[in-house]
């Protein structure tokens, strides 16, 4: 219970008092704390994935380098991709969803607070399980795309791909539950007056992303089931000798994999659509079109998967179809870029660090979008695919798009999370170092690819004459690392020493800025009624009074240990498939059952 004893003791339920310290963190159902847990975990894995990236770049700094053995290199690049997509990109977005969506739509928590905690714990255990493979010297080594039939026991006999298949299965469960939670929250829990077309763009993109999560991840789950059945029980879905077909895996994987790209980038669009209007002191230009284009991207994003497979050989008609659908998706994306420019046009632009990152994101994402259209030119895609040109493209999209947006979001919302500013001087210096390092790393890769260097190779011949460009790239990677260290330093220093920020230090327009910094547990003392898209620019007085005044009688859910308990069970159910006997997974299933039953009967 969690009622607010000081203010409303009369409404306190009889229940355990809220625990403190570590016990509070492992039993919390508060969306803000879960958001912080998600964020801290994702940032930790960002460092892990970054170190993996540096190892890759050291190996490739010169041709025929023996720094890493091929098997170790293959593990490192597989884990770099898997980590950055599943343990960084998705959870960092979910972290911001968690913290901000209820605040932006005027709710006290997400629709299913315990489910939210369960998502986090399953994610954490899945991530730890996947990385535990390093302790066995058997990290996944088949690429983040795990192509069949290389992933079969015949060609990958070790534990490596077992860790991968089971680990992703666990992580997928967490994402699907998260998606369900956010859809329900955004549709059902908006404050009075907040019609869908008044929902801030970040929350809109959270909604589209959540729909993609609950539709795309089941496809991955199916693919992983086929793969793990092949590996554990000798089914032969991908075994050509038995009439199976490895190309089926490619279709399933990319049918998940391309919506996944939009799962990663739409939150970034949402973030930038909040930072740019705030710092331009102008409303978002073409709000409705920004919403529709985001929805359209989510829908068309389902019809482009086979552009990852032009080289697979699908025939000219399929090639033509996926060429056209892929080119079409450039149009709503382009509209977003033009609308961001128009938002800044005529504005009074404040260049704080967050805005630098947002503008940097627009600049670099544009380059990634452009090279995406080049990929869609499918006859020449056959030259580009599986080379460093592709690596350049999707790092411009995912680092230039997502990571820059996330860093910007960190600077933008840090005062909300902690009540303190991050250091602006260190922030701006860090931005420039990161931005220059980023371009130095990924711009030359376009040429490295078109000059004949394939991806996923632990060594390249000196005869390719690509040593110079690769050294430039490696130097850029280390410059990026300096930028990241500066960012993390800034976060740690500012937690204690940052200048105090009020509730709305940037004079932003959306509801989260009406609350205190950091918001109290119940977010809004009284749920405000909104009458516009920019409530704090139009009707700040009443809304701030509601948000920060005397709390009305309310009920907040108590802490619960059943989410973490159940998460252990779900994880064990998957992990124990690697155990020698058939009955061992039953332990996990029984454990989960105990958790679910107790969960159901727990008073909230």
């Amino acid at each position, binding site marked *: 219970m969690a009622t607010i004893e000081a203010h409303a003791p009369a409404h306190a339920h009889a229940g355990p008092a809220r625990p403190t310290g570590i016990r509070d963190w492992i039993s919390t159902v508060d969306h803000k704390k879960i958001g912080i847990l998600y964020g801290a975990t994702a940032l930790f894995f960002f460092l892990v994935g970054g170190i993996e990236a540096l190892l890759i770049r050291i190996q490739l700094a010169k041709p025929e380098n023996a720094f890493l*053995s091929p*098997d170790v290199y293959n593990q490192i690049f597989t884990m770099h991709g898997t980590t950055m997509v599943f343990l960084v990109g998705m959870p960092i977005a979910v972290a911001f969803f968690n913290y901000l969506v209820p605040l932006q739509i005027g709710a006290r928590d997400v629709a299913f607070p315990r489910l939210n905690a369960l998502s986090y714990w399953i994610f954490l255990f899945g991530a730890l399980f996947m990385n535990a493979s390093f302790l066995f010297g058997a990290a996944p080594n088949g*690429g983040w795309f795990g192509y069949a039939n*290389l992933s079969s026991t*015949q*060609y990958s006999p070790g534990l490596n791909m077992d860790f991968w298949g089971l680990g992703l299965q666990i992580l997928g469960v967490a994402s699907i539950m998260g998606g369900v939670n956010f859809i329900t929250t955004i549709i059902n829990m908006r404050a009075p007056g907040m019609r869908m077309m008044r929902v801030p763009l970040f929350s809109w993109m959270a909604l589209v992303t959540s729909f993609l999560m609950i539709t795309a991840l089941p496809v991955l789950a199916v693919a992983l089931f086929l793969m793990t059945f092949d590996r554990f029980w000798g089914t032969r879905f991908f075994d*050509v*000798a*038995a*009439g199976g*077909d*490895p190309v089926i895996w490619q279709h399933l994987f990319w049918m998940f994999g391309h919506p996944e790209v939009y799962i990663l980038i739409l939150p970034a669009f949402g973030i930038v659509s909040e930072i740019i209007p705030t710092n*331009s002191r*102008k409303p978002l*230009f*073409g*709000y409705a*079109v920004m919403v529709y284009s985001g929805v359209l991207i989510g829908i068309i994003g389902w019809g482009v998967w086979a552009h990852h497979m032009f*080289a*697979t*050989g699908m025939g*000219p008609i399929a090639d*033509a179809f996926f*060429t*056209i659908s892929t*080119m079409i998706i450039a149009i709503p994306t*382009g*509209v977003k870029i033009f609308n961001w*420019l128009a938002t800044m046009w*005529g504005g*009074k*632009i404040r*260049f704080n660090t967050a805005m630098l990152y947002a*503008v940097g994101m*627009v*600049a670099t994402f*544009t380059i990634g979008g*452009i090279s995406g259209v*080049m990929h869609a*030119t*499918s*006859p*020449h895609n*056959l*030259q580009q*695919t*599986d080379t460093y040109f592709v690596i350049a493209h999707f790092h411009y999209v995912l680092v230039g798009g997502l990571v820059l947006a996330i860093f910007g979001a960190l600077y933008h919302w840090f005062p909300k999370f902690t009540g303190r500013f991050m250091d602006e001087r260190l922030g701006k210096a860090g931005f*420039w170092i990161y931005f*220059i390092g980023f371009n130095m790393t990924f711009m*030359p890769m376009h040429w490295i690819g*078109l*000059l*004949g260097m*394939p*991806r*996923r190779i632990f*060594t390249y*011949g000196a*005869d390719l*004459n690509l040593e110079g460009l690769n050294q430039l790239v490696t130097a850029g990677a280390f410059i990026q690392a300096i930028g990241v260290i500066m960012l993390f330093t800034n976060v740690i220093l500012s937690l204690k020493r940052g200048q105090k920020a009020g509730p709305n230090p940037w004079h932003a327009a959306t509801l989260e800025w009406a609350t205190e910094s950091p918001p109290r547990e119940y977010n809004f003392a009284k749920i405000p009624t909104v009458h516009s898209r920019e409530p704090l620019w139009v009707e700040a007085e009443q809304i701030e009074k509601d948000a920060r005044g005397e709390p009305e009688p309310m009920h907040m859910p108590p802490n619960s240990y059943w989410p973490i308990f159940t998460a252990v069970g779900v994880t064990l159910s998957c992990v124990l498939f690697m155990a020698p006997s058939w009955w061992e997974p039953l332990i996990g299933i029984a454990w989960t059952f105990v958790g679910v039953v107790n969960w159901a009967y727990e008073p909230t």
Partner: protein
Amino acid sequence: MSKFRFRRVGGLLTLAALFFVAACEAGGDFPQTTFRPAAELGEKQNAVFYNTTAWTVGIMLLVEVLLLYVIWRYREKPSQPHPEQIHGNTKLEIAWTVIPSIIVVLIAVPTILTIFDTQKPAPDDALRIEVIGHQWWWEFRYPEEGVVAGNEFYVPVNRPVELRLHSADVVHSFWIPKLGGKRDVNPQPAVTGDREPHTNQILFTAHEEGSFTGQCAEFCGESHAIMRMIVHVVSEAEYDAWIEQMRSGTTSSDMLTQLARTPGATAPVGDTTGRAPEVGDSAPPRTQPQVEPAASPQPLPAPAPARQIGAIPAPTGMPPSRPEVPALMVPGAQTDAELGREIFLSKTCVACHAIAGTRAQGALGPVLTRFGTRPWVGAGAARNTQANVEQWIRDPQSLKPGTLMPGAHTPGGGMPPTNLTDEEIRLIATYLRSLK
């Protein structure tokens, strides 16, 4: 502050432009460049790429310049009033939806025409080559000529060539950038009838003679990076000569006798520096084709089966598929190469490797006919020098981890160690390198 930023961004763009110019200007120095195709396939692909690039880079520059202008023009100024609150402009938004749509059409139409143009069925006079991907080497089969080659192949200039690609194990991807785009090399699902559901085709006509390198582009396991190959585009006459040599082998009795008479012929030829000849230098020797009735197409050995761990092919269970050409023993003084040949043919080497003109007919590993002309050993694992070939035979895992080739003391691919002595290894290497 903003001027400072402007310079930085401008500097980056200039740097990028410099890269582009440098890369295009120096295209000749990059053996795997896509910018200078040697075949019309690559040219068609580049043409449509340059069309797309011109439009899209144009848009990109427009957006970036606009962005720089906006952030400079509308940066915060002290006395500036609060900006006008504009929520949108329908005409503008329609404009920047419709104009990009038109540009998409201008990009898509040539793209689609090229898709259908480059995937036409092969003409009747096309040279058909079957390309089989293995972990981690390439097999090239010329069904009409009765020739099998490993890791290197020859095609005649100005004649259409149809590559038919499939894999013996996992998914690979065939990529020789100077010819054109890559295609995956897929394992074939067992289906009835003569359908080949995932056999891919690459149809190209090379118009420039030369030797061009390529490599596997789809991650295919531990030593994916060491799965390289070379295509030699040569004149029709050179091509015919090569086919003839590949059929008969080079170690015909004539050649052996010749070798026996030439002292020192077994020393690494033209290779005293320890460096293999550059790829570009490895044009075929211009020997006359041996016109003999015996040179009719030989039956191809059975396709190499998929990698089977644990299966030990018995060397004795592979009878020579045709009468053994020259006698194993050459009486009299034997050169190192001749001794090496005897050892090669009497050991388990022949279980996996074939050399035309001998009884070595193994089909599990790459064909070694004319091995001496190749610049690399192990599909790019190391240069073809005496020391490297010896090292390869002694301990192939040290050069190419995961390879199925057994070493002197290490098993591999279900084969026991070969137990060859250092002297035997030296002689075998000498023999293989003499196969020119």
